[in-house]
């Protein structure tokens, strides 16, 4: 497949891997004290497992799978709120597919659907607007999820609903922003990260400038990375080069998609429709200031939180759950006391076992770090 197979070439991968190995040796790190590099985005986590990249890397590199799976970090209380909306008479709840299995305190959307709620899987918020047009007698609520990647589509849909005067459409907004979260991770006292792979799709919207503080203030290198396996290997190589040279910069490997200034039209739509919340809760990480958005007052009539009475309870993660430590790279998934026993993809306890992009689910399903040739 054109523009895909070129980025999965095994010979080029082998060449990159030998350069990566040489760099790790030159930096002087090995399995006893590996370089910890965090990929922030769940899409990268997925690719790494899908292609078995982790097992191909030298022992002197340890990948830390960050908080970038928006489905995983959705707190239990927000799922409960969404279920409550879905179970309100007259509501059609439209959601992305991978959100319907996320467990709430009582049930997931999938269970709510089985109990009679009208839950429909859509592939874009515009599909939800189409549902609203087709069912003027019903309330259509879109379960808005994701980082800056999916935020513009939700914003543009709200603007479209406004233009058309559609009164039965609203968004249950759980959109989150990446930068305050990276900052929260960097402020964590038990952190040892040596560098970052930056989120490609988020950066396509916000550009590379918002990450400058990572290099400037925290002295960590970051390379904004694409999602194909060669993108990831090249980005790792670029991070290692910075470490070897003693540089801390924000570099852009994904220049074929990501512009330094981001996407102005998308940012404009987001800015018109959304405002930052004072604080938003993350599963596994707790409340993080300014890490979520909600519709502005001018768009209150499209805000499901303002329209529907929801329990809005803040529910703590189970005490035994160690997702927070895994997210920060303090623990590997297998080191969590619940991994593979109480917490499995069938019965997820913690955030990271929930979605296929969650680090623990990926470890469980694809074998994680153990899947080397020796295994």
């Amino acid at each position, binding site marked *: 497949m054109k523009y895909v197979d070129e980025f999965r070439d095994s010979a080029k991968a082998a060449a990159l891997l030998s350069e990566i190995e040489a760099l790790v040796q030159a930096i002087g790190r090995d399995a006893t004290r590996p370089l910890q590099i965090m990929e922030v985005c769940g899409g990268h986590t997925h690719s790494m497992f899908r292609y*078995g990249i982790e097992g191909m890397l030298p022992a002197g590199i340890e990948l830390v799978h960050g908080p970038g799976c928006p489905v995983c970090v959705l707190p239990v209380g927000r799922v409960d709120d969404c279920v409550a909306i879905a179970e309100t008479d007259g509501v059609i709840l439209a959601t992305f597919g*991978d959100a319907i299995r996320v467990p709430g305190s009582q049930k997931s959307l999938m269970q709510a659907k089985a109990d009679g709620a009208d839950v429909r899987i859509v592939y874009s918020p515009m*599909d939800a607007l189409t549902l609203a047009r087709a069912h003027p007698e019903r309330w259509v609520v879109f379960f808005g999820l*994701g980082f800056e990647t999916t935020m513009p589509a939700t914003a543009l849909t709200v603007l479209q609903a406004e233009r058309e005067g559609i009164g039965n459409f609203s968004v249950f907004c759980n959109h989150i922003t990446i930068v305050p979260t990276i900052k929260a991770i960097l402020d964590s006292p038990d952190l040892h990260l040596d560098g970052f792979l930056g989120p490609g799709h988020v950066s396509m919207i916000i550009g590379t400038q918002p990450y400058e503080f990572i290099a400037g203030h925290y002295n960590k290198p970051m390379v904004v990375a694409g999602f194909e396996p060669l993108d990831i290997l090249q980005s790792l190589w670029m991070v290692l080069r910075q470490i070897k040279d003693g540089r801390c910069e924000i570099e852009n490997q994904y220049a074929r998609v990501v512009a330094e200034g981001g996407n102005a039209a998308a940012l404009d739509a987001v800015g018109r429709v959304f405002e930052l919340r004072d604080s938003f809760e993350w599963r596994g990480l707790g409340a993080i200031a300014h890490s979520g958005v909600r519709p502005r007052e001018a768009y209150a009539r499209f805000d499901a939180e303002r329209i529907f009475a929801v329990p809005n309870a803040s529910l703590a993660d189970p005490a035994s759950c160690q997702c927070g430590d895994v997210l920060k790279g303090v623990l590997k998934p297998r080191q969590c006391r619940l991994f593979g026993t109480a917490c499995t993809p069938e019965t997820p306890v913690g955030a990271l076992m929930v979605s296929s992009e969650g680090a623990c689910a990926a470890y469980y399903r694809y*074998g994680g770090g153990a*899947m080397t040739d020796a295994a």
Partner: protein
Amino acid sequence: MRRLLPLWRRRYDGRGVSTLALRRPAAVAVRSGATVTLSHGAGGKAMRDLIRDVFVAEFDNPLLATLDDQARVDLAALQAMGNRLAFTTDSYVVDPLFFPGGDIGKLAVCGTVNDLAVGGATPLYLSCAVIIEEGLEIETLRRVAHSMAKAARKAGVSVVTGDTKIVNRGACDKLFVTTSGVGVIPAGRHLDADLAEPNDCVLVTGCLGDHGAAILAARGDFALETPIVSDCAALHGLIAALLKGAPETRFLRDATRGGVATVLNELAESSAVGIELTEADLPINEPVRGLSEVLGLDPLYLANEGKLVAVVPEAQARAAMAALRGHPLGSDAAIVGRVVAGPPGRVTMRTVLGGRRIVDMLVGEQLPRIC
């Protein structure tokens, strides 16, 4: 089967003319354009007319035409074909009812024929039970029955007994079909999921995921135009060719729901072996790859309705490949992996990049990813 059919015709038809020519619906008692109502399920004249004019007319065989409560089959004829009876059942609930490459009727015949054939059986008889939602157009039912009859004729099987139920609107989705099947396994033929041994070759008989991808695209949930066509087909001919070329074949399974990955996981568990796949060797049609890329799906888990997974001893792998590729339904056959000693129950894959990963069972349905 081909040997048996003329025999029945002589015995039951009594006119010496092909039943196929005789039993076309001459007078249509059930109006076209009409819909199925609850009265069609009430057991009276309306029901009898519907069954006669739609099913009996299409399925066209003397065992069914008597409209008795059961089909009666001569045992001696079966015994001449083998020493074990194979018996299977499956329900079909596909949405949409008609899709590129097939429909629920063709699926219900081919699927059950395949479930018999992968056990080494010669498929012979099917039953057909339908649950119809009131309001379904009779023309739709006729099209489905026609498609079933066509698929059954092509596969050389007869639909010899059936049942019709009509339910209230909303109690089922348009039309559900259940087919059971009976076949005979020749003496000495043994195919089983616990027979795989280290060094055996794992084959697939063609491109993966066509049916699953065709259904996804046909649902029209996303505005993607694709040329993807379901691979829905009866595979007993292909299986006969394979078993002739590679008589030591150890295991066969049609890779339906859950796809090839699910079949291989079940096999690895039953045989207490490991399986190593090579991603680069998996045959996948470009449009299916494209759809999977766009939606974040893995073709290894997409359903097939005309593809087999076969496990063959290494010594017969070449012969198996030649036999498969010599058949129209096996032209894209490929050796995709190998059975290894362990770890038992684990399926792994050498990725295109050169890495390795586990290919596990899916927890639930495969869901498109959001980013």
